[in-house]
C-alpha cells in the first residue's frame, strides 16, 4: 500500500493473530501428517509441518508489529 | 648433568615466551635499540639451548627422548606431554636457527611498532617449537591453532599492499583445515574409548597420547582409516600447501614482511609435511597403502611440482616467484613421503630442512633488495652484479642450492627423493625430474634478468652492497647449505631410526638405507633393492 495502513486495518490484522497461531500449526501438522503417510516417512513431516506453520505465524506477527510501529 | 632428566624441551619452548613477556612489561616502546638487542639475545639463547639436544640425542634408540609428562585436564584425558624423535629434532633445530636469523634480519626492515613486532616473533617461536615437541593430540591442536594468531598479525600490520586480504585468507584457509583435523582427533579419541557411529570402541581410559592413539589407529578397519586419513589430510594439506589448496600461499608470502616470509616458508610450511610423516603415515597405514589413496596423493604432489614450477616461470614479482617455487619444492617433499620407502622419507625430511634454508635465504635476499628499492618487480632491476657483487654471489649460491646443484644441500634431498620415487615407478621420477629442470629454468632466468647485463635502470646504479649485519644473516644459511651438501651423514644418522619405524609401520618390512649414506646398519647386510611391498 502506498500510504501506511489505516488503524482499523491494523486492529483487524492484530485480532487475527491469536487465531493464526492456532490454525497455522494445526494446518501444518495435518498437512505434514498426510504427506508423511503418503511418502511413508512417519511422523517427522507432521512435526516439521507444525513447526513451519508456527514459524510462518511468527514471521507474520513480526511483520505486523513492524508495520504497526511505523 | 643428564639431559634427559631436566625438562629441556619445555625450557627451549618457553624461553621465547618468557622473553616476550619481559618485553611487554619491562621495555617501553620508545627504546627500540634495547628492544631489538634483547629480542636477538633471547632468540640466540634459544638456539644455544637447542644445540645440546642435538648433541645428547641418542641416534640408535627408537622412540621419543627428553620426554616430559604431566597431567593437564584429567576430565578429558589430556596431558602435557613433550618429547622428540629424530624428525622433530631436526625440525626443531631448523626452527630455532631460522627464528634467530629472522629476528635480527628485521632491524632495518621494520620501523614502526617495533616492540609489538618482536613480541609477536618471539611468541610465534614458542608456538612453533611447541608444535614440534608435543606428543598429546589436544596439546598439538592447541599449538597448531594458536600459531596462526601471531602470523596473522605479522602479516596484517607490517605487510605489503594487500596485507589485510592476505592475512585473513591465510587464517581462514588454515583454520578450516585444522577444524576438520579436530574432528579426526575426536574420532580417534572415541575409537579408543567408547566407540562412535556404530564402531565399537576399545574401552580404554580416555587419552590423547599420540603414541597410544597411533597404535590404536593402526588397528582400525580400513574404511575408518580412510575417513580419518582424509580428515587429517585437510588439516595438513592446506598447510603444505598441496595443489588445489595452495592459493593462500602466494598472497601470504608476498604481503608478509621479510622475517614473516622467512618463518612462514622455513617453518610453517613444514608443519604440514611433518604432520603427514608423523601422523598420517604411521596412524593410517592401510589407508595410505590403498592404491587409490596413494594415487591421489602422488598425483597431487606431482601436479604441485610441475604446475608450481610452470606458474613460477611466468611471475613478475620476485617474492611471488619464490612463493610458487615453494609449492613446487614441497610437492617434491610430498612425493618423497608417499614413495613410502627409506630413501623417499629420509630425502623428504632432509628436503624439508633444505627448503627451509634455501627458500628462507631467498626471501632474505629479496627483502634486502626491497629495503633498498621498495620494489620487487623483476623489471625494475637488471645488471645488479655490477653495483652489488657480494650480494650477487650470495644470491647465486642460494639459487644453486635451491635448484639442487651437487655440493649444495638441495642435491642431497632431491637425489634421495628421486631414488625413492624411482623405486616405486619410473614415471613418478620422470615427472619429478621435469620439476627439477623447470626449477633450474626459473631460477637461472631470474638470476639472469636481475643480475647480468648492463644496469638497465639508473636507480640501481648506486645501490649499496651488503652491510655486515646483512651478511651475518646470510652467511649461516650459506654455511649450512654447504655443510649439508658436503657432509649430510649426521642428518641421515639422526633420521634413520624414525624413518625406519615409519617405513616398517607402513609396509611391514624394513629396508636398507640409501647407498651413499652407508651407515652400517647393525643386523642386516643384504643390499636388497629397495622395493616397498604393496
Amino acid at each position: 500500500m502506498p500510504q501506511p495502513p489505516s488503524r482499523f486495518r491494523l486492529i483487524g490484522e492484530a485480532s487475527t493473530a491469536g487465531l493464526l497461531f492456532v490454525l497455522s500449526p494445526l494446518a501444518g501438522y495435518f498437512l505434514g501428517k498426510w504427506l508423511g503417510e503418503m511418502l511413508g516417512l512417519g511422523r517427522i513431516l507432521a512435526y516439521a509441518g507444525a513447526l513451519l506453520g508456527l514459524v510462518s505465524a511468527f514471521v507474520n506477527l513480526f511483520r505486523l508489529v513492524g508495520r504497526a510501529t511505523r | 648433568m643428564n639431559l634427559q632428566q631436566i625438562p629441556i624441551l619445555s625450557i627451549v619452548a618457553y624461553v621465547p615466551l618468557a622473553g616476550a613477556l619481559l618485553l611487554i612489561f619491562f621495555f617501553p616502546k620508545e627504546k627500540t635499540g634495547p628492544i631489538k638487542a634483547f629480542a636477538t639475545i633471547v632468540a640466540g639463547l634459544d638456539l644455544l639451548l637447542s644445540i645440546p639436544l642435538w648433541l645428547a640425542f641418542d641416534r640408535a634408540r627408537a622412540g621419543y627422548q627428553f620426554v616430559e609428562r604431566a597431567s593437564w585436564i584429567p576430565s578429558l584425558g589430556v596431558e602435557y606431554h613433550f618429547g622428540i624423535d629424530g624428525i622433530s629434532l631436526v625440525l626443531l633445530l631448523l626452527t630455532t636457527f631460522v627464528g634467530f636469523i629472522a629476528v635480527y634480519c628485521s632491524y632495518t626492515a621494520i620501523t614502526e611498532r617495533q616492540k609489538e613486532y618482536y613480541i609477536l616473533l618471539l611468541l610465534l617461536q614458542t608456538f612453533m617449537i611447541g608444535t614440534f615437541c608435543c606428543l598429546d593430540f589436544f596439546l598439538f591442536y592447541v599449538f597448531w591453532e594458536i600459531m596462526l594468531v601471531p602470523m596473522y598479525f605479522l602479516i596484517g600490520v607490517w605487510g605489503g599492499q594487500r596485507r589485510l586480504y592476505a592475512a585473513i585468507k591465510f587464517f581462514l584457509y588454515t583454520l578450516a583445515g585444522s577444524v576438520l583435523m579436530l574432528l579426526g582427533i575426536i574420532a580417534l579419541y572415541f575409537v579408543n574409548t567408547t566407540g562412535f557411529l556404530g564402531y565399537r570402541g576399545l574401552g580404554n581410559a580416555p587419552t590423547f597420547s599420540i603414541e597410544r592413539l597411533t597404535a590404536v589407529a593402526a588397528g582400525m578397519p580400513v574404511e575408518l582409516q580412510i575417513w580419518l586419513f582424509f580428515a587429517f589430510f585437510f588439516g595438513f594439506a592446506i598447510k603444505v600447501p598441496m595443489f588445489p589448496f595452495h592459493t593462500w600461499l602466494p598472497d601470504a608470502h608476498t604481503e608478509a614482511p621479510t622475517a614473516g616470509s622467512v618463518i612462514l616458508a622455513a617453518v610453517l610450511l613444514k608443519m604440514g609435511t611433518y604432520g603427514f610423516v608423523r601422523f598420517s603415515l604411521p596412524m593410517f597405514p592401510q589407508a595410505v597403502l590403498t592404491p587409490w589413496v596413494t594415487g591421489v596423493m602422488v598425483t597431487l604432489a606431482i601436479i604441485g611440482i610441475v604446475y608450481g614450477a610452470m606458474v613460477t616461470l611466468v611471475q613478475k614479482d620476485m617474492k611471488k616467484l619464490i612463493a610458487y617455487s615453494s609449492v613446487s619444492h614441497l610437492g617434491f617433499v610430498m612425493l618423497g613421503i608417499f614413495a613410502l620407502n627409506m630413501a623417499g622419507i629420509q630425502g623428504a625430511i632432509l628436503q624439508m630442512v633444505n627448503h627451509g634454508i634455501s627458500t628462507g635465504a631467498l626471501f632474505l635476499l629479496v627483502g634486502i633488495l626491497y629495503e633498498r628499492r621498495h620494489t620487487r618487480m623483476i623489471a625494475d632491476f637488471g645488471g645488479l652484479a655490477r653495483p652489488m657483487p657480494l650480494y650477487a654471489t650470495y644470491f647465486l649460491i642460494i639459487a644453486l642450492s635451491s635448484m639442487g646443484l651437487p655440493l649444495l644441500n638441495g642435491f642431497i634431498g632431491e637425489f634421495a627423493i628421486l631414488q625413492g620415487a624411482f623405486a616405486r615407478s619410473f614415471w613418478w621420477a620422470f615427472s619429478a625430474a621435469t620439476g627439477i629442470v623447470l626449477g633450474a629454468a626459473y631460477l637461472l632466468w631470474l638470476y639472469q634478468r636481475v643480475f647480468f647485463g648492463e644496469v638497465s635502470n639508473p636507480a640501481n646504479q648506486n645501490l649499496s652492497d651488503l652491510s655486515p649485519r646483512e651478511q651475518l644473516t646470510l652467511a649461516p644459511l650459506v654455511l649450512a647449505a654447504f655443510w649439508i651438501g658436503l657432509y649430510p651423514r649426521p642428518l641421515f644418522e639422526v633420521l634413520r631410526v624414525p624413518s625406519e619405524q615409519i617405513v616398517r609401520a607402513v609396509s611391514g618390512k624394513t629396508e636398507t638405507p640409501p647407498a651413499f649414506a652407508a651407515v652400517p646398519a647393525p643386523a642386516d647386510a643384504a643390499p636388497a633393492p629397495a622395493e616397498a611391498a604393496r
Partner: protein
Amino acid sequence: MRVEASDWLLLAPELALTASGLLLLALATLFPKAKEEFLGFLSFLSVVFTAIVLTIVAAAAPRGKGPIFGGMFVLDNFALFFKYLILLSVGLTILASIQYVGAAAYPGGEYYALLLFTGVGMLFMVSGSNLISIYVSLELMALASYVLAGYFKEEPRSMEAALKYFVLGAFSSGVLLYGLSLVYGISGRMGLTDLAQMTTTADDRQLAGLGILLVLAGLLFKIAAVPFHVWTPDVYEGSPTPIAAFFSVGPKVAAYAILARIFYVAFPKFQADWGLVVAIVAAATLIWGNLAALLQTNVKRMLAYSSIAHAGYALLGVLGFRTAYGLWGVMVYLLAYTFMNFGAFALVIFLETKGYAAETVSDFNGLARRNMPAAVTMLLFLLSLAGIPPTAGFIGKYYLFTAAMKAGYAWLAVLAVLASAVSLFYYFRIAAAMFFSEAAGARLQTSYALTAAVVVCAAGTLLIGVAPEGVLAVLKNCIPGGYLNDLPADSTSRPLPPFHCPSPFPLLTCRSGDPRVDSSSLRSSNDSRIRFAPQNDSRVRFAPQNDSRIRFAPRMKESVAQLLGITQCPNLLPASA
C-alpha cells in the same frame, strides 16, 4: 503437598533478591534525587548478598531433603550452578550499566529493580522441576525483560524493540503453554520426574509428540534459534546496550537451563521424535546465524547474530544428551559463553556512541594505538567466540563437537566446525579494525565498574581455557541424576535410567564415594554401568481402556488435588540406582 518451613529457607536467595528489588524501588521513589550510581552500587551489593545467601543455603541445606514445595522446585547441583551463573550475569550487567544509565536521562531506580526482578524470575526458573512452576517463573523473567528492552522511552528504536519482543514473546509463551497443556492432557502430570515415566500408546504418542514439539518451539524462541530468531537482531539493536548484553547471556542461559532440564529429565524417551528436529534446527541456526553475521556492519546486530549462532552450537549438546558429554558440554559452554559474550558487549559499551545504537565496526578503528589493553582484551574475547584455543570458547566447543560426534550426528559436527571457522571472518573484522587501521574511531568512555566487569570476563575466559580442570570437575557433579557414562555404540536401544530426585548437597564437595560421579568409572566400562532396575510400584500408566479416542487424564481428580496441594507428593523413586 506439604509446605515445610525448611522450604522457605531453601528459597532464601530468591526471597533476598526480591526484597532487594522492592527495597530499591522504594528507595528510588522516596529519594528521587538519589544518585544513579548509588542505586546501582546498592543493587550490585544486593546481588553479592544473594550469592552469599545462596552459598550458605547450599552448604547448610539438610541432607536427604527432597524437593521444595512438594515437587515444584528442586535445589540440586544443576540448579545451583545455574543460579550462580545467573547472579554472575546480573551482577556483570549492573556493573556495565552504572555509568551508562547514569549518563542517560532515564531514572535508574526502576532499571535496577527490574534487573533484579528478572534475576528472581531466572533463579526460580532454573530450579523448577514442575512444568507449571517453570512456566510461571519464565513469565516473570519475560515481563521484566520486556520493560527493560524498552527502557529508553524516547528512542523509537527502543520502543520498537520492546514492542516486538513483547508481542513475539507473549505469543511464544502462549505456544509453550499450549504445548504444556497437551502434554498435561496426555499424562495428567506436571512434574518432570513423573513425566519421565510417561508411557503412551501409539495414538497418544502423536499428540504427545505435538505437545513436546510446541514446548520445544516456545523454548527455541527464548534461546533465539532459527527459525524463531527474527526478534533478536532488532531487539538487541534497539535495547540499551547493557540490556542487550544481559539478554544475550542471562535469559538465554536460563532458557537453555530449562530446555536442558525439561528435555533431559522429562522427555528423554521421546528423543526419536525431537532429535532430528533439533538437529535440523541446529544446522539451520548455525548456517543462518553465521551467514547473516557476515553481512552486518552494525556491531550490535553482528553480535546478535553471533549469539544466534552460539545458540546453534549449544543445541549440539542438547542432541548429545544421552552421551557423557552432552549436558556436561552444554554447561561448560554456557559458562564460557557468558564470559566471552558479555565481555565482547562490554567492550562495545566502552565506545562512546555518536548516535543511539549506531555502533559500527569502524568505531573500533585504531583501538590498539589508543588503548592497547582494551584491544588485547577484545581480541581475547573474539578468539574465544571463534573457538581458537587456549580460550574458554574452545573448550566449550570441543565438548559440543564431541557430543555431536558421539551422538551420531557426524554431518552436523562437520557443519559446526566449518561454521566455526567461517565465524572467524566477521569476528576478525573487528580485530582488523582495532589493530590494522590507523583511522580515528570512537573515543572510549571508561568507568571503574565497567573495567571490573571486563576484567572478570577476561579472567574467566582465559582461565577456563588454560586451566579448565577445576571447572570441569565441578560441573561434572552438576548433571542432574549423576554423570552418565558413555554407553557403548552397540547398545543404542537401551533406555535411560529413571531420574531420581537428588538431595541438595553442597556444590563444591565431590561425593567421591558415589560410583556414578567417580572419575575411576571411566577406566573400565563394565563396573559402574547404570543399572536399570524396573520400577513396578510408581509406574504410571495412561493407556486408554477401551477405545482409541484420545482421552484426557483418567486420574484427573488426583492430579488436580496434587496441584492444589491437598494430597502429599507421590513417592518418588528410591535413591539407589
